[in-house]
């Protein structure tokens, strides 16, 4: 364009000027458009939850589906509590990009269900609003929530979400294999690492040079936080600002869990064998006798109960090195996006979904359905301690459940009372990627544990520093 204008300059000065003006106008237009295209949420980081008037309008919910009776019963109660607004659900797991794009474009849903570890990131970027006023308006007693779950949705002192569900781990084992080796759950529940390593060796079997029975699966990389905490260390400081991946106790935990695999031929051997199993079916590792023990989330109890009810299973809580029960809790939470058009309805809906009575009603439905199909109701962990207590006492009676499911129920509830979480922080994805990649480098033989954790520490801390700096200088500063 410029070259052509130059050539024509002598005899066509007017056209050249026009051309230059055109180019300048185009450039200005592009600059204005690019600058204007990515409009953020600005200062729209609060919502009005006041007023007792009749709720109206619509309520759009993203990331929540009516997949089972636990969802359906609570949804029906929440719609009834709204008494007016039409509720539309965008079912399926929350699509973070779709959600953030909707918020950025000023067309967000009124309510979202996210994993709890996402809340800090959303809050730090102003994608969701604090709900302290909502809790007050709906007279929600936050004391009923699991403290750890609530802390995961509390960012820089403000509550940003209503927690629901606790996913916790318990120790699961093949009782026959344990008995044959003269072992008990105490040998594989993590309370004695030397005993656990010895148990793994005793349970491991090979045939024709190939692994045929996995002794113990220490479930790396995902359960590093569990092993670290069992050793007295947290991966992240309580304020969510300092990575602690290079803590010697984290290193010791990683080396222990890694050693479990090394004794069985290495992680690759265990993993490829593990992946060949029918994890969700009747041919699962416990039913086929190819796995001694592993820590696993409690939802797997129901899978085992449905797919292999007669498998020789044994259950118990995971324990730390002092012998105390321990569980790394995760779960989801309801949050209200910035710019939501109907925050009052969103607040009431979320409050009803997480209310004690709603959980108990949903659990009753589940218990009835399980009884009808001849299966054991193992309870649900709701992140609402009051609801958990009522469900356990009113609907779940381990005395009525046959062995080994009674032990699974006891272990699950014990675990739910001894949870810990990673604190809310504004760089959760980068933090998790840093430590998981480090563990995988170790498992794949690409790096020694110490070097891997030191690299992860640097990566995680850099991500945290940048994210916290952005918060401290921007949104956080304006709120203070």
């Amino acid at each position, binding site marked *: 364009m410029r070259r052509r204008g130059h050539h024509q300059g002598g005899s066509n000065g007017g056209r050249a000027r026009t051309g230059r003006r055109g180019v300048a106008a185009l450039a200005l237009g592009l600059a204005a458009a690019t600058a204007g295209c990515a409009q*953020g949420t600005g200062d729209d980081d609060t919502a009005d939850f006041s007023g007792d008037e009749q709720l109206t309008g619509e309520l759009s919910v993203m990331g929540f589906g009516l997949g089972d009776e636990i969802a359906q019963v609570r949804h029906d109660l929440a719609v009834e509590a709204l008494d007016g607004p039409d509720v539309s659900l965008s079912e399926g797991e929350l699509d973070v*990009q779709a959600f953030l*794009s909707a918020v950025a474009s000023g067309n967000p849903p009124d309510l979202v269900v996210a994993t709890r570890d996402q809340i800090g990131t959303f809050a730090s970027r102003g994608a969701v609003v604090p709900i302290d006023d909502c809790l007050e308006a709906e007279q929600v007693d936050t004391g009923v929530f699991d403290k750890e779950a609530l802390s995961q949705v509390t960012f820089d002192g403000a509550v940003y979400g209503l927690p629901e569900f606790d996913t916790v781990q318990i120790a699961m084992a093949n009782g026959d294999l344990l008995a044959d080796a003269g072992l008990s759950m105490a040998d594989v529940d993590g309370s004695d690492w030397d005993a656990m390593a010895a148990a793994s060796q005793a349970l491991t079997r090979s045939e024709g040079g*190939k692994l045929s029975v996995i002794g113990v699966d220490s479930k790396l990389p995902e359960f590093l936080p569990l092993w670290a905490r069992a050793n007295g260390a947290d991966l992240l400081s309580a304020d969510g600002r300092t990575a602690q991946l290079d803590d010697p106790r984290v290193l010791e935990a990683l080396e222990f869990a890694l050693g479990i695999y090394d004794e069985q031929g290495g992680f690759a*051997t265990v993993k490829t064998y593990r992946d060949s199993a029918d994890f969700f079916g009747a041919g699962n590792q416990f039913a086929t006798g190819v796995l001694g023990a592993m820590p696993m989330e409690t939802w797997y109890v129901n899978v085992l109960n449905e797919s292999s009810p007669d498998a020789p299973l044994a259950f118990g809580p995971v324990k730390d090195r002092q012998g105390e029960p321990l569980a790394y809790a995760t779960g989801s939470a309801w949050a209200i996006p910035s710019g939501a058009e109907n925050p009052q309805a969103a607040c009431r809906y979320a409050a009803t979904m997480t209310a004690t009575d709603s959980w108990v009603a949903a659990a009753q439905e589940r218990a009835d359905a399980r009884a009808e199909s001849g299966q054991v109701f193992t309870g649900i962990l709701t992140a609402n301690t009051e609801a958990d207590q009522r469900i356990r006492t009113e609907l779940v009676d381990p005395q009525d459940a046959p062995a080994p499911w009674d032990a699974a129920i006891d272990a699950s509830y014990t675990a739910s009372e001894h949870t810990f979480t990673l604190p809310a922080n504004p760089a959760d994805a980068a933090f998790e*990627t840093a430590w998981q990649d480090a563990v995988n480098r170790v498992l794949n033989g690409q790096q020694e544990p110490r070097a891997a954790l030191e690299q992860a520490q640097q990566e995680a801390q850099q991500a945290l520093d940048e994210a916290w700096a952005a918060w401290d200088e921007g949104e956080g500063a304006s709120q203070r």
Partner: protein
Amino acid sequence: MTSTTTASRAPANPRRRRPTASARRERNAALRFISPWIVGFVVFTAWPILYSAYLSLTDYDVINDPTFVGLDNYRQLATDPKVALALWNTLVYTVVQVPVYVLLALGLALLLDRAGRSAGFFRTAFFVPKMTPPVAVGVLLLLLFNGEYGVVNQVLGWFGVDGPAWTTDPDWIKPGLVLISLWSVGSSVIILLAALRGVPTELYDAARVDGAGFWRRTRTVTVPMISGPLFFVVVVNTIAAFQLFTEAYTAYFGAGSSTYRNDAALFYVIYLFQQGFEFLHMGYASALAWLLFVVIMLVTVVQLLVSRRLVYYEGDRR
């Protein structure tokens, strides 16, 4: 030189000749007909390209307004060890995958060209896998290449070969991905087969008269005559290899794949995706995208320069 000579013989200032009314009508009609494409190109291609260039100079987290940071993102590229790792992984994959893929496609096309009446069936059979969604191919990779019980190692076992841990051993992850990429070789086979069918038979007849066997005819007649389409396949697959994402991401970085994550599978576009869509560093991801654009452009330019000596276009004066 040629252009100067031509210009001196041409009428003076031909551009100034006003187009006739019918020519203007034709031009306007043509513009109207292609306007849907132009609008689509501007809105969905040109504009995003320009916008990503702008974003690469900003700190942008999708939610809040972009903050201009100058060349900071590009400076960070130079010091980010994962950029070097991802580039290296991508380069190694490309250097191995493209020759293997193209040679296999050529070999299959040569076989199909001699298949006679059954060529139609095999043509379809080779192309059908291309219809498999890349996500499914990623899952397939984990099943077929399971180190203990995957089909690939079972077949290798028949020949007494103890197959590697394709999906967990860092040294074998890229070879595994190269092999699974051959799943979709059918599309290139079809292109090369069409080119083979266009080679004049008299050239083969002449070669036969001169005593050339199959390999000699392939080397001195077939390959030069289809060098244009062959070059196209090389360029397109080189670009695709640099942009490898779906299969590798599904297998090693997707939801529920935390135990498969592996630095050996951290390809450039995967790292770009992580930065942009997982860590919400959209400005940095845009800078990453522009670096990839420059790398691909340089490689393509080199390929074009080399092609001037190696590629034959019918009707070309060279």
